[in-house]
């Protein structure tokens, strides 16, 4: 089920870096450039065409598209100097509808947009103003503003239909104008897509954001903001940034002033679970505008691996505080979800709060899951999962045990 976002291919006649929309012949005829949400030309299209189709219709090579993609092993010769991509190592990675990035001298094709996936992402930057102990993607201190241009272009090339689209980093608010521009363009070009931005919220303490966000007035925009404690010292320790708690809270209130939809995200670790009930209480008391609270299992990659000793707690050992926090919020009408937690690690009565939250391209099931009957409903694991991050509670669920899931889901 896990489908990588890149694969190696053979590339001929690529002269410059390109972002291209992969399109099938049928779609080219039926919809032309209208498969893309924004303003594109034939020169932005890469015709996905099996070798037999090209052999049957050699005139296709005269189409002024950017190039051709033969999605199979191929050792022929096109006979023309056109961009040609063939023999993908994994033929399932690039499909019609996808948007791919190509770089000269590099045989790796990267899928920046995958048709029909709910895990598509506009990646804004590798920079961040925090340094969270469990960061899955350690920040880099580089100038990568070029992501803004790339994302603006990527938006044009996406399918226009209804889908979820994430915006993340790094800290996307670091490129304030670029982010605002991208949000405005999402509203204009991808009107049917709902947008979810992940941000630590610290920079929103600047009230200038209120007017900017209000004027964009995106109808389907929400913000996922992490809050790790009900007090400054714990939170600031987790994010390794003095003053962050205060900034994030001011930011949260400014988001509320701008009528934004806010979700609070809590990564569950040895540092955050002991006071989880207090944090739930704090959110309910102080952030009544919050629409959703996501309590999230940790992703064992990046800095998290380095800080294993400080972070690791077996999910079996925080079931009590998790239960308290979930029901405290749920009973008060605040929607709660459990992300990234396999069903076998969550008490049955909390199963209805679990979600299949892990992005499809990094989601897998481990050996212990092979005899489990719940794979269709379970979040599974991150692809970074390893033995020392494995709970003692991991076990296959039997049909009898799992029938409780169907009941609790009602």
């Amino acid at each position: 089920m896990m489908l990588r976002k890149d694969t190696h291919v053979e590339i001929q006649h690529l002269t410059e870096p390109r972002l291209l929309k992969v399109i099938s012949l049928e779609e080219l005829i039926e919809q032309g450039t209208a498969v893309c949400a924004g303003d594109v030309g034939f020169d932005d299209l890469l015709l996905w065409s099996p070798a037999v189709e090209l052999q049957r219709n050699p005139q296709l090579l005269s189409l002024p598209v950017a190039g051709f993609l033969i999605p199979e092993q191929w050792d022929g010769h096109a006979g023309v100097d056109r961009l040609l991509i063939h023999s993908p190592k994994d033929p399932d990675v690039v499909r019609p509808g996808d948007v791919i990035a190509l770089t000269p001298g590099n045989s790796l094709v990267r899928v920046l947009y995958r048709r029909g996936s709910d895990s598509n992402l506009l990646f804004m930057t590798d920079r961040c103003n925090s340094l969270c102990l469990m960061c899955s993607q350690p920040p880099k201190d580089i100038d990568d503003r070029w992501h803004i241009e790339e994302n603006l272009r990527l938006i044009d090339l996406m399918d226009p239909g209804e889908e979820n689209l994430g915006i993340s980093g790094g800290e996307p608010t670091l490129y304030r104008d670029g982010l605002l521009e991208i949000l405005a363009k999402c509203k204009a070009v991808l009107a049917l897509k709902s947008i979810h931005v992940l941000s630590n919220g610290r920079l929103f303490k600047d009230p200038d954001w209120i007017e900017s966000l209000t004027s964009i007035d995106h109808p389907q925009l929400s913000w996922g903001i992490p809050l790790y404690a009900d007090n400054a010292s714990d939170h600031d320790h987790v994010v390794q940034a003095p003053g962050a708690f205060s900034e994030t809270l001011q930011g949260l209130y400014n988001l509320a002033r701008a009528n934004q939809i806010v979700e609070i995200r809590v990564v569950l670790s040895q540092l955050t679970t002991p006071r989880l009930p207090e944090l739930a209480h704090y959110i309910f008391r102080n952030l009544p505008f919050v629409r959703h609270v996501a309590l999230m299992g940790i992703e064992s990659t990046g800095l998290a691996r380095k800080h294993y000793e400080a972070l690791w707690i077996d999910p079996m050992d925080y079931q009590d505080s998790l239960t308290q926090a979930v029901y405290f919020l749920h009973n008060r009408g605040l929607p709660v979800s459990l992300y990234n937690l396999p069903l076998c690690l969550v008490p049955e009565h909390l199963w209805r709060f679990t979600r299949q939250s892990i992005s499809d391209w990094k989601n897998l099931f481990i050996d212990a899951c092979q005899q489990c009957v719940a794979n269709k409903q379970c979040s599974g694991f991150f692809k970074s999962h390893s033995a020392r991050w494995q709970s003692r509670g991991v076990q296959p669920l039997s049909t009898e045990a799992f029938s409780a899931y169907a009941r609790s889901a009602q």
Partner: protein
Amino acid sequence: MKLLDRWKILLGGITLLPVAGTAFAQTNSLPLADASWEPRGNGQSPVFADTLNAPDAINMYAAHRSHSSHRSHSSHSSHYSGSGGYSAPRYYSPPPASTRSYTAPSSTHSSSSGSTGSSTSNSLYGPSGSANNPSTTRTRPSEAQKNNLVMRVQTALMVRKYYFGKIDGMMGKGTRGALMSFQMDNALTVNGAMDTQTLNALGIRIP
């Protein structure tokens, strides 16, 4: 109900539960649809009208038979070449100390800083055209749009073995002849035009 019976119900959580259970079970087993949802007796699947292009669709290409002053057909994409590609930092100067605004750089994009993005005509959004400007396309398609449609018609005719020339977006003799043969074979009005009927028969949605 006697007072004693009430007390029994209030105290007997055990007796209450099965009651609730049966109530839910009944709710769940209620039919979701009535008898009119029965599948059609003759085993055929439902029939839908062809909605590719509605009969009253605005087709400003129908009258487009030949091209007069014709620009190079690759010109439609010239806006993008270079700027559209995936690339390392090309447009932006190194980040200033403040994260508040970035200086928008080269000649390709002139105005970006300071904009809060409320306008859809921001120059960074790329060239204006169909997406941002539907009203202009309704009245008169641009040369590039015509080319694109002709290319799709040529491709569709090629797949059906009516057209053997280059796919160049030009409505020339070969393309018109292929269109007419196709129209003849499909009992359409033989006019060599990209009218809505013909586009529907070719499986082409009007842009």
